[in-house]
């Protein structure tokens, strides 16, 4: 089966400062888009696998976000929960073209 990938323009690079996240709502889905210190953008599902905390509000350190509810540490590039906790969140592909940031949904 062929997969259809939808590319959605969500914002301009300067609309979210480095080390901050932005909530992106696509229909019923909430995505946390992060602008890392390195300048890269990453997007993950905006729900911590622990108790559903909104990850977009977490403290960002390097490529990790710390969930604001119970301090779970999640790698935003892979969606993997870091030790000592376990789990993972869905990741979304992000593309930056010029000043625009896109999220790819399949």
């Amino acid at each position, binding site marked *: 089966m062929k997969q259809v990938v939808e590319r959605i323009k969500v914002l301009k690079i300067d*609309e979210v400062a480095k080390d901050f996240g*932005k909530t992106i709502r696509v229909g019923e889905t909430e995505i946390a*888009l992060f602008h890392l210190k390195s300048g890269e953008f990453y997007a993950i599902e905006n729900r911590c696998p622990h108790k559903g905390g909104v990850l977009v509000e977490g*403290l960002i*350190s390097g490529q990790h976000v710390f969930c604001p509810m119970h301090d779970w540490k999640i790698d935003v590039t892979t969606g993997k929960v870091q*030790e000592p906790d376990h789990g993972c969140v869905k990741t979304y592909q992000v593309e930056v073209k010029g000043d625009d940031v896109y999220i790819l949904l399949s």
Partner: protein
Amino acid sequence: MEKRRLVLVGNGMAGVKTIEEILAISKDQFEITIIGEEPHPNYNRILLSKVLQGDTTLDDITLNDWDWYEENNIQLLTNEKVIYIDREEKMITTNVGTTLTYDELILATGSKPFILPIPGADLEGVTTFRDMKDTDEMLAASKKYRKAAVIGGGLLGLEAARGLLNLGMDVTVVHLGENLMDRQLDEAAATLLKKELEKQGMRFLLQKNTTEIVGQKRVEFLKFSDGETLMCDLVVMAVGIKPNIDLAKSAGLKTNRGIIVNDFLETSFPNIYAVGECAEHNGIAYGLVAPLFEQGKVLAKKISGYETTPYKGSVVSTQLKVSGVEVFSAGDFIEGGERKALKVFDEQDGIYKKMVFVGKKLVGAVLFGDSKEGNRLFSMIKKQADISDTVKVSLLQPIGGDSGESVVASMASDEIICGCNGVSKGTIVQAIHEQECTSVDGIKACTSASRSCGGCKSMISELLEITLGDQFVATASKETLCSCTDLSRDEVLDAIRNKKLMHTREVMNVLGWSTSEGCSKCRPALNYYLGMIYPLDYEDENESRYVNERLHANIQKDGSFGVVPRMYGGVTNSDQLRKIADVADKYNAKLLKITGGQRIDIFGIEKEDLPKVWEELDMPSGYAYGKTLRTVKTCVGETFCRFGTQDSMSLGIALEKRLERVGSPHKFKMAVSACPRNCAESGIKDFGVVGVEGGFEMYVGGNGGTHLRAADLLGKVKTADEVIEYASAYFQYYRETGIYLERTSKWLERMGLDNIKAVIENPKQRKELNERLEVALSVQQDPWKKIIHSEKLKSELFEKVKV
């Protein structure tokens, strides 16, 4: 006396450690040259897995930096390989043509990784895990590729696999044997280990024999003897090591698996010695670090002409350096024949412990899940201690009270405490006496003990306690700021002041943080400390603040927020209540609740509505989310109450207006009661005031939360102005000396009430504290107003994107 020429071939851990030992006992006997193939100074090879796992960098694992060679007048030749030894002329030649004569020659050529002799082993993307170059190759591969296969489920293979997992790769470990780490673990421990690592995301193919590595230019997949395949674009071979003996062999020295040495590390030819992984003693070539140090000590004495006890082989122990997994094994750990085992298996907590005895002696042990007792058991195995007086199972318990004698105390002075860096008990005791080390970190700085795996910290701590007695207790409880650094809060603050560090990143870089970006513990803490130290110049880092402080509202579990406007002294009016009611209706508040701090919390506000809510409330922020003054609870006092002796509401309002907004280590709650009936509950507040006839009593360090604590009397003053002056000084003193996230109840116990009293009661100090607080207060402004008036902040922090 003319110096003897000493040449060391191999700039690695074993050889350089031997040189260090030689320098320590006979500094001026030798003119030393070291020749090494790698372009680096001597580094701690066993910590490469930590570099790969991202815990540390090459700089941090360097054992001897370039300066060390220079300071000790050692000639160091890097990037050169010795290719020829002329043992008759006593001369060596390197690959670039350097020739050197020697009086004594030490071979410490180490070992090289074993490469499976299968087709495709030379393809791009196939590496071993032995040196910095290999580590760099894996780091680079992880950026471009996804799938890694590690061949070999031993210690090194698993550490490599864990590292690659950290780097975001899919990792499969391919192992020929039935059990992981089969040379170090028994079946039960290996099974637990496998389960744990699988939980961490590692995959395993056991009993798989790799027959071919297939790919065009770069590896594409592995082929196994059963015909199956595994796709991968990086292959790490960790199937064992073999001693580097080519040079020795060509020189005609006796070799077997390694270079054969006797009990004094002498090879079969005079004036040539071998030490470390390349040496074979009594049929064994060791591949672990601890034996190398024991050998180095013997060799150093021998070569310097001192009498020495012969080297009689080593009992080895292993510890896996993988986060979240505690594995330890030592000695002869497989039972059978006269070796009898005692096992404890706690399935619930995933803990497995086994001791193996021969008669009354402990000869081996395996620990999984909890390896705290490893060092102690290892010491008993090495000493071949007679345990017939002990209840055997109690050996697995921590030493507490009088149930066991301290192992450290009974250790001989030359016994090794830090196996990674070969530091003996004697060296540590000497550092305590001569260099006045009083903490584990002090010992680490002076002797390198505990610098690597950290497994010996508890023993060092115990040794400090034994050696220093009472002096130790005061200094031992050093808490580091967070796990990114070994420095305590005080050390970090001293450095911030002395080195004029003005930015969180600057602090992390200059003070050598182990993480480049810090963590959720140190970032907010540093942000606070910098703001406290430089109230006028430091620019607050919003991204280092916890969500509530960043958005100036309290996040709830559904992602909505609570809004608490300031009601000074818990006093409100109809106008405020009307506005709160209107806002609650308009923005669909889910709950209105009177808080314990005498104000109203509006729950269930959506993030994007927060600025509008604040604007329509037109009240200052109540900082219900802040590490700062929260509320000043008051009773109605003399204005209405028939018992009241003072105007508690006015004083409460004045205190709140004076101290609000400025940050403190943790939240700070106050109360003012107008009489000892204490309706405002001043006895469980950080600073509580109780009005009495003719004055006020001030109580401090109270807490009504997790650390329930009745406040202590700080003192008594006559006027309301004095209360404000004392409270301000007290608050500022807490700001300056508190540890971030330490409530005043803990702070007071740590500092001592009398010490705090002495500062606050001293008029000069009280005045200065007030002045410093003034400065900090002068730059505060209401955060809600600031955001309402900034379109940038509003859109950046509060708006969601809907597509």
